[in-house]
């Protein structure tokens, strides 16, 4: 028991720090270790793939080579003669083509040693699309004859898998984000209107969402995606794809927002606002939507992985992003068949990144959900 001499008027002594809603949210969020890890991973992904892909990737997106479908090369510190080097290096690969079976195989050539340099000047690029630069996080000396470093192997066209992972990640992660934002605007607004006004508008919206929901999304995706003409530039394909994804998935988000608005509509503070004569639009925008913002943030964060996975599935079927643009789904397409699994399994590595990203988003979203309910039951 704490002995407190000033117990007569304890409140006067302490400074009452009134906590705003958001500071409470942050405080509770901080306690959830999984959520913090998730948040950090998500941030790392967006920075490394989204913003600085060109820097992290040793090669450009379109750089091909003659080492088609080469296996991953491990960096070493110790060479075949047992000597230790401070700088990591890779042994070069030697290509053999079997004349009779036309099969390609690779062996490690210990005579070719390529040291890895950091912050090296290699292929030039434009950082953020604006600033000209040519430094990469790591790479091999471009002046060294025949030097290459394919840490995760290469694909059918001899492009470095690791570099493609970064560039592909940029597309996959951005589709996730922009798709959800589009869905949000469209779906949340409609859901809010539907929930608030009720009646005929609500009924119609409900039926429409149910209809879309009863429709299997694979054919919907496939059909809409295959409508995109083959001649259109990959960038436009990307935009159209985002819109298609948003269109098919808006139903789920709208339904959740509608449910949210329905529950909030009946709360006392709305009745109070109405009794003051506030207009519908004012109530909608100044009271209901801010009250729902925390829920919307949670719903959005948790919707992003679904969007990423949808794009992955579509691209895997060959209907999504078109080369030369690449995404994790496109990379899976090359690796996701029986022949590839048997002979070039390293092409499946994008799976790890996809799962990692989705896992991180889920942990983050779950943590946000717990944190935004600081007065809540759990």
């Amino acid at each position, binding site marked *: 028991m*704490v002995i407190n*001499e000033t*117990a*007569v008027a*304890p*409140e006067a002594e302490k400074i009452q720090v009134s906590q705003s809603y958001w500071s409470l949210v942050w405080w509770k969020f901080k306690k959830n270790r999984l959520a913090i890890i998730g948040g950090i991973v998500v941030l790392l992904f967006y920075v490394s793939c989204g913003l600085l892909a060109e820097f992290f990737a040793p090669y450009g997106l379109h750089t091909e080579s003659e080492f088609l479908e080469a296996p991953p090369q491990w960096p070493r510190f110790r060479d075949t003669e047992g000597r230790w080097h401070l700088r990591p290096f890779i042994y070069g690969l030697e290509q053999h083509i079997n004349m009779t079976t036309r099969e390609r195989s690779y062996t490690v050539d210990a005579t070719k040693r390529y040291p890895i340099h950091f912050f090296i000047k290699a292929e030039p690029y434009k950082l953020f699309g604006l600033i000209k630069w040519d430094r990469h996080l790591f790479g091999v000396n471009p002046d060294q004859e025949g030097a290459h470093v394919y840490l995760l192997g290469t694909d059918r066209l001899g492009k470095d898998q690791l570099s493609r992972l970064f560039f592909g990640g940029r597309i996959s992660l951005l589709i996730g984000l922009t798709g959800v934002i589009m869905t949000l605007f469209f779906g949340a607004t409609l859901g809010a209107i539907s929930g608030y006004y009720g009646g005929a508008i609500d009924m119609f919206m409900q039926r429409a969402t149910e209809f879309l929901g009863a429709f299997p999304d694979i054919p919907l995706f496939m059909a809409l995606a295959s409508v995109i003409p083959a001649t259109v530039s990959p960038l436009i394909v990307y935009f159209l794809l985002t819109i298609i994804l948003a269109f098919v998935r808006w139903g789920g988000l709208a339904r959740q927002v509608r449910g949210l608005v329905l529950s909030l509509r009946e709360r006392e503070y709305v009745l109070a606002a109405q009794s003051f004569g506030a207009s519908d639009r004012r109530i909608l925008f100044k009271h209901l939507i801010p009250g729902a913002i925390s829920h919307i943030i949670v719903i959005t964060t948790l919707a992003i992985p679904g969007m990423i996975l949808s794009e992955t599935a579509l691209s895997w079927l060959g209907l999504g992003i078109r080369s030369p643009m690449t995404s994790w789904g496109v990379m899976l397409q090359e690796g996701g068949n029986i022949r590839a699994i048997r002979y070039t399994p390293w092409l499946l590595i994008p799976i790890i990144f996809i799962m990692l990203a989705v896992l991180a988003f889920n942990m983050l979203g779950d943590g946000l959900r717990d944190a935004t309910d600081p007065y809540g039951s759990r």
Partner: protein
Amino acid sequence: MSENQVLVEVKDLKVEFDVRDGIVKAVDGATFGIKRGQTMGIIGESGCGKSMTAKAILQMVPKPGKVTGGEILYHRLIRSNGSEKVDVVNITELDPDGQEIRQIRGGEIAMIFQEPMSSLTPVYDAGTHIREAVSLHRLMPIRKIDSQMVETIQAHRKVTKEEAREIAIDMLHKVGIPKPEQRVDSYPHQLSGGQRQRVMIAIALSSQPAMLIADEPTTALDVSIEAQILDIMRELQDEVDMTIMFITHNLGVIAEMADEICVMYMGKIVERADVVSVFYQPKHPYTQALLQSIPHIVKKKTRERLVSIEGMVPDPFNLPSGCLFHPRCPRFMPGICDRSQPKWTKVEEGHWASCFLYENV
């Protein structure tokens, strides 16, 4: 013969909650005894520990709470072949998930709760609730007629399904529910609040317990319904000579129901006496303040302010030194009340209080 025997003894009970910010002493040294056939009232403000005391008696203190001290003794009366025997069971030593306490729960000491709205499982009808309790606790004696044509009870068996249903309808009738044969199949959401509380009483009494703990049973009900429920409780108590532990914060209700009253404040019992003494000669300043805060209807419009107790209930993590009530006490004695805790003192025959005013008499 069993009139003045004690049924449940609570000795220096301590219940603590270990939460992140510290340890909260929900019950700090409660001592009292409940006699057979009596109604013991526990009164106090919200959060003073009265519910926890009741739950401790059934070993149902919710996590992260724990009974950390004291003991609770239950004097079980065993009637066999005409003779009576008393078996003392130490409840605090029983395993909260074990078989012995489960036999006592509902079967020998039953409890009804504050929220009849949500204290019944929504998917089971009234009859199913009663039958579940009856199948668990009620035993029918197997009567045998021995060679000397004397009826003896050799053993007991569980009730059959038909008997259980009969008992259910009978109990619903006893608690005053009209058309019990139909109501026995009603679901909770089809019953009104008052009816649900009657069903809860029926469930509790169907197992013929020795004691009923009523934790704020009428707080959530309208005043008129409350009166009906209290009537039923008194009738049933007379009929089966049942002991009741009645917990409430409502002085009017407890005046009606209790024979003896314990007044609790911040986990401690501050006064204990029979109902008349508590109301007409309250000794502890807290009790006195409580009684004074009851609004009086006077003939003359004197426009007096309503009396309330000064200050607020202290923060459980920042308890006052010495007597917990001293910051709000109109009879505060500096140097004494803030130095140490008062002892449980006998002020008069049958009247106890925990206050320095009576200590050195």
